[in-house]
């Protein structure tokens, strides 16, 4: 096992070992019949996220989206699995790579695509762009690009809920690099101190831009062990298995909801495309093609589809119809965004303060 994989969770190691074995086919345990409906809806949720992101990638070169974009293609199971374990009124926050979290939480697609186009109809009125997403109606209370900065803010959401006696769970989505920031540790300490109803969902995709784990974290402990050091309950597993993610997140949400305090969830996964932008970047040398292919064989969508097929629960015709409907929805969102007005120049300085 390459050294830089050593500090990823056991699930990542397992997943890689599985993928690099001769068969190149991941394990596909059968789905219990009680979960077939859930599995079908997770598959649909992941497919929708991927189709949206692929549409963004395809259209990026038109230069209508003039902002950085960070795609989660390959990592859809984490967003879909965690959000499916939440209630509609639960809250979530994220960082620079947040499209999947926003969509899985029920964020408005039209408003997201319009925001990426810098339009007045965007979820931030054109002020934010791809790295600044918010949809309060969906319980998605914000994503911003400064790594780690929404971790304490999400902790504050949970703090306020607890103070006000509101029965709700908050999820803070974060990447592996965010666990290196001071605010991560400060937040976990506070959350555990006050037994806050929050789940820290860490997608460990092994890289921070082009920096592998090996230059950032010791290989003698896993990320979830840091959280355990703060006294948090921790769970970790295969982040490319949507059903497994859902099971872990449901468990986490139940204990957070029951007042048992914060839970840390580490999900092993992998980003397929370049860190920022629509392209591919295996050729620049920070990661190997072999590693990429191993993870690609763990495609969360293909895996779940195969398991449903094996369980004779995959309806190819219905799926094709659904995909077509999603594509129509996406095309409409792009068309609407491209036709939408830009924010008025006179509105430039609006929203710095509450209106007088």
């Amino acid at each position, binding site marked *: 096992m390459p050294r830089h994989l050593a500090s990823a969770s056991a699930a990542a190691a397992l997943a890689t070992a599985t993928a690099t074995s001769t068969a190149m086919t991941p394990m596909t345990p059968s789905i219990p019949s009680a979960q077939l409906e859930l599995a079908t809806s997770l598959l649909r949720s992941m497919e929708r996220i991927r189709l949206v992101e692929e549409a963004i990638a395809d259209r*990026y*070169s038109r*230069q209508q*989206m*003039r*902002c*950085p*974009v960070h795609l989660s293609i390959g990592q859809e199971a984490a967003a879909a699995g965690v959000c499916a374990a939440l209630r509609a009124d639960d809250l979530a926050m994220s960082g620079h790579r947040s499209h999947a979290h926003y969509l899985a939480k029920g964020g408005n697609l039209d408003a997201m695509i319009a925001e990426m186009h*810098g*339009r007045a109809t*965007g979820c*931030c009125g*054109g*002020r*934010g*762009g*791809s*790295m*600044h997403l918010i949809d309060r109606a969906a319980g998605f209370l914000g994503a*911003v*690009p*400064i*790594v*780690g900065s929404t971790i304490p803010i999400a902790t504050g959401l949970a703090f306020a809920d607890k103070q006000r006696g509101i029965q709700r769970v908050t999820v803070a989505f974060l990447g592996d*690099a*965010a666990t*290196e*920031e*001071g605010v991560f540790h400060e937040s976990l300490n506070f959350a555990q101190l006050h037994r806050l109803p929050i789940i820290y969902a860490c997608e460990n995709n092994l890289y*921070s*831009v*082009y*920096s592998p784990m090996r*230059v*950032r*974290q010791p290989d003698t402990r896993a990320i979830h062990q840091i959280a355990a050091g703060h006294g948090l309950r921790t769970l970790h597993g295969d982040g490319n298995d949507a059903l497994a993610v859902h099971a872990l997140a449901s468990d986490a949400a139940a204990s957070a909801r029951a007042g048992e305090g914060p839970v840390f969830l580490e999900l092993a996964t992998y980003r397929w495309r370049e860190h*920022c*932008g629509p392209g591919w970047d295996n050729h*620049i*040398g*920070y990661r190997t093609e072999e590693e990429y292919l191993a993870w690609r064989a763990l495609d969360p969508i293909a895996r779940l589809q195969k398991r449903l097929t094996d369980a004779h629960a995959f309806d190819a015709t219905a799926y094709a119809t659904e995909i077509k409907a999603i594509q129509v929805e996406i095309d409409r969102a792009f068309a609407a965004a491209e036709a939408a007005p*830009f*924010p008025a*120049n006179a509105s*430039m*300085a609006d929203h*710095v303060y509450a209106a007088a």
Partner: protein
Amino acid sequence: MTPPREISYAAAIREAFATCLARDPSVVLMGLGVSDPKGFFGTTINLHLEFGEDRVMDMPCAEAGMTGVALGAAVNGMRPVINHQRLDFALLSMDQLCTQAAKWRYMFGGKERVPLVMRAIIGRGWGQGPQHSQSLQSWFAHIPGLKVVMPATPHDAKGMLIAAIEDDDPVVFLEHRWLHHLTGPVPEGHYTVPLGPTRTARSGDKVTIAAMSYMVIEALEAADRLAAEGIEAEVIDVRCLRPLDRESLIQSIWRTGRLVVADGAWASAGMSAELIASISESAFGALKAAPKRVCLPDCPTPTSPSLAADYYPRAGHIAAAVREVLDLPPNDADLLVPAGVELDKPNPAFTGPF
């Protein structure tokens, strides 16, 4: 005579690093991505291959802690340079930089020294938005104990970076991303540009334009346009904000009597305010007109390209300000955007993302 060698600003930065790393084993570079395949916008590319990953090192995403680590290393005999791809990320380290490093020599009675450089990139365009675009030079320039430099040319970038690394005090080195691809004459080998004196980028007698960093480029373009109308502007490149060479500005104002300050930051409580205050205090009698500031509108940076165009001041805004201080009628042509120019791109070849 052979023409001087021309290289890019980014290459000049890399050369400064290579020069210092080769000359002094106590120099180390740390920062997210300094040793990655993109080499920090090309400014550190492959230096880790030449000097080893122990001296050119990537680091955890931990700006606050790592600034303290760099400070400790500086106090203990090394010359660390800590690098941030956006100034916004460096804000996480304000305690270690401003409250610790900047005070260290003073509060320990002059017995200590802090040869630390914090390098941060500022930028604009292509949706940098509210959290990837801040030009907070005035924050750092406000702090006694820090030196703050913003070179505008490849020559100064190399010479001032070497001077910063060799300096025994903490230096904040700020680069505008749009300068990186610009080329200019850069001497080979070791040389320094002192941290302090301004540079007269262009001589003139009608008005003084004091500009910083990328705004020097815009100021020079404005001066070109004005020269075509017979208005000779002096462009002073305020390449060091602290220590601030007030004297050279005062002398220029005594020659021209008029002042426009161009700063790619907000006006309120900014460097432009400091420059105008300095002139007002020391050379009020030289001023024939009220000075003017060309700065950002007083709101965070909007991401939409439609607003970015109105947000970032450019040569036309400077030319318009010069007309005002000269009491000339406004010229609608000042703010026209030439066909094909996209104001959220540093150069026509750029297609995003940053």
